[in-house]
């Protein structure tokens, strides 16, 4: 019987999350994609390049979906940091976006220090990126632990708004600290990730014809890296949380802190480790994000941070699976909005309105499901 249990736990912890992730991706793409197609069919009219709106959408949809998913994975990984901390402390760590930003800077400094030539063999480049991601994880993880110790723990008994203000203060502090350090060292407060032609090339995934439209699906080489890294981390986190003694303790602390202490759990230590894990994920994501966008500055964390927080709320804050779902949904929504808003509105609203659109959808969802898509147990806590 014991063997059966441990096998089922392994299955629960490794296979189920991957299936879950796949289902989330499939469902969000299916739902949002169908809505777009139906809308395109309803408002079909000629648009640019001698195509109708429907033709344009069919031709570009697969590509837009891939791009949206990649953003979604990044949001999901950041969202996990918010949601884990919220789970154990019922507290929004607003400094998480800056923990992410610091990770991006640690990564860029390491990559620049390594000075891998842009024509280096792929293996060497990948090793460099892996090293940068690892450094970002360690640096941001430790930073999150220090922040908790210095800025949050002394305020644990205080009213809920007090640590929130402290978090905002930490955010500003980190932005200005990075700006000051980079300014002193480099005379500029932004940095550029080294660019590698081999990672920037487009890889053809598929070329086929659908409804008379030639469809091309391609993906940038570095994006593959981001996807693999996020899948590994999301699965790894699921394993830690659902199948290890540490994960069990984290969930116990999240559900009932005093009772967890009565089980012999050192609650402060678990809270520290939660910050460590969340920070490490944030730092890794910072590096991946930096590799994707190239140029980073000390304020680069704000927008992805706010969106990841939104994703966490959308999925049901405190719920780890929900954070993943929320990230994917928000990323896909945003990708679709960015690609089609201008075509659908005849140019009245351009790509720059994609966030407004994505947040409008979000508000609508939360009006009908205030606890988020998967957040049923939040109510009994708040």
């Amino acid at each position, binding site marked *: 019987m014991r063997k059966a*249990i441990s096998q089922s736990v392994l299955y629960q912890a490794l296979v189920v999350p991957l299936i879950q992730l796949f289902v989330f991706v499939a469902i969000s793409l299916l739902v949002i994609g169908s809505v777009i197609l139906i809308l395109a069919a309803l408002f079909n009219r000629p648009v640019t390049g001698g195509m109708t709106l429907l033709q344009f959408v069919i031709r570009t949809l697969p590509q837009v979906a891939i791009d949206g998913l990649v953003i979604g994975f990044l949001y999901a990984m950041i969202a996990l940091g918010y949601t884990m901390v919220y789970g154990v402390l019922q507290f929004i760590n607003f400094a998480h976006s800056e923990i992410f930003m610091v990770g991006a800077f640690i990564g860029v400094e390491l990559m620049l220090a390594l000075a891998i030539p842009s024509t280096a063999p792929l293996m060497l480049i990948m090793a460099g990126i892996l090293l940068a991601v690892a450094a970002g994880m360690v640096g941001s993880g430790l930073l999150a632990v220090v922040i908790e110790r210095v800025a949050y723990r002394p305020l644990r008994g205080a009213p809920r708004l007090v640590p929130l203000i402290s978090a905002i203060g930490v955010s500003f502090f980190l932005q200005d600290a990075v700006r000051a350090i980079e300014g002193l060292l480099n005379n500029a407060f932004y940095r550029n990730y080294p660019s590698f032609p081999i990672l920037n090339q487009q890889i053809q995934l598929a070329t086929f014809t659908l409804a008379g439209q030639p469809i091309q699906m391609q993906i940038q080489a570095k994006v593959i890296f981001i996807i693999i890294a996020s899948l590994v981390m999301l699965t790894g986190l699921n394993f830690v949380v659902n199948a290890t003694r540490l994960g069990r303790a984290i969930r116990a602390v999240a*559900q009932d802190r005093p009772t967890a*202490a*009565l089980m012999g759990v050192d609650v402060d230590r678990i809270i520290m480790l939660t910050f460590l894990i969340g920070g490490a994920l944030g730092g890794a994501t910072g590096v991946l994000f930096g590799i994707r966008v190239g140029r980073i500055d000390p304020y680069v964390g704000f927008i992805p941070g706010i969106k990841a927080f939104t994703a966490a709320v959308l999925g049901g804050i405190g719920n780890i699976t929900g954070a993943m779902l929320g990230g994917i949904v928000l990323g896909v929504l945003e990708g679709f909005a960015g690609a089609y808003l201008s075509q659908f509105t005849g140019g009245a609203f351009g790509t720059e309105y994609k966030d407004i659109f994505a947040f409008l959808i979000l508000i609508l969802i939360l009006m009908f499901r205030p606890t988020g898509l998967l957040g049923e147990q939040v109510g009994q806590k708040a």
Partner: protein
Amino acid sequence: MAVLELIDVHAYYGHIHALKGISFKVEPGEIVTLIGANGAGKSTTLRTISGLVRARHGRVLLNGEDITHLPPHEIVARGVGHVPEGRRVFPQLTVWENLEMGAYTVKDRREVARRMEFVFTIFPRLKERLHQKGGTLSGGEQQMLAIARALMMQPRILLMDEPSMGLAPILVESIFEVIRQLNQHGTTILLVEQNAHMALQVAHRGYVLETGRIVLEGTARELANNPQVQAAYLGMH
């Protein structure tokens, strides 16, 4: 030596002076009960022993060792098992995971498995519910799980806070039967109960608390026959 001894313990709940100098002893193999009205300080006494509430003054000794200022997880590691008021089963963890949490301080996997088998001999029902979430169990099952979870620690002393609360009379009977059975296995128990009638039937000795002070003590029989206790807690006139 007493398993547990409290010496002039004072504790505060916010600004309320909840314990005003509590002193008592629990000897090995005993069931000792604390009875008293709502707000008399029974739960606070248990929470102070476990370290969830800090004693402002006085000392708590476990087998002679001063544990007054230790954090809860270290007190647990020294052998204090606590079945909290209202069961406090982890609702989103399975029965199995809840039991594993009870053995959190035990690193040896085989030992954990052995204890779990022992717990199932007392609560066979839990074995049937192994993969069900704690929150989906009935009230009686949750109480069994809460007790079983504390037993996974193999505590030197088991603190039980209102184990009969909110249970149907038939379940109350069986919970008290379990308490008696555990004690026969050698578990020392400190029992807090509003159901003084049942508590005094199962206990060896008892203390009566009123507004943070011990006002009466004696063997269970003495207390059950005391006219004051009968009037105030046993519903006799």
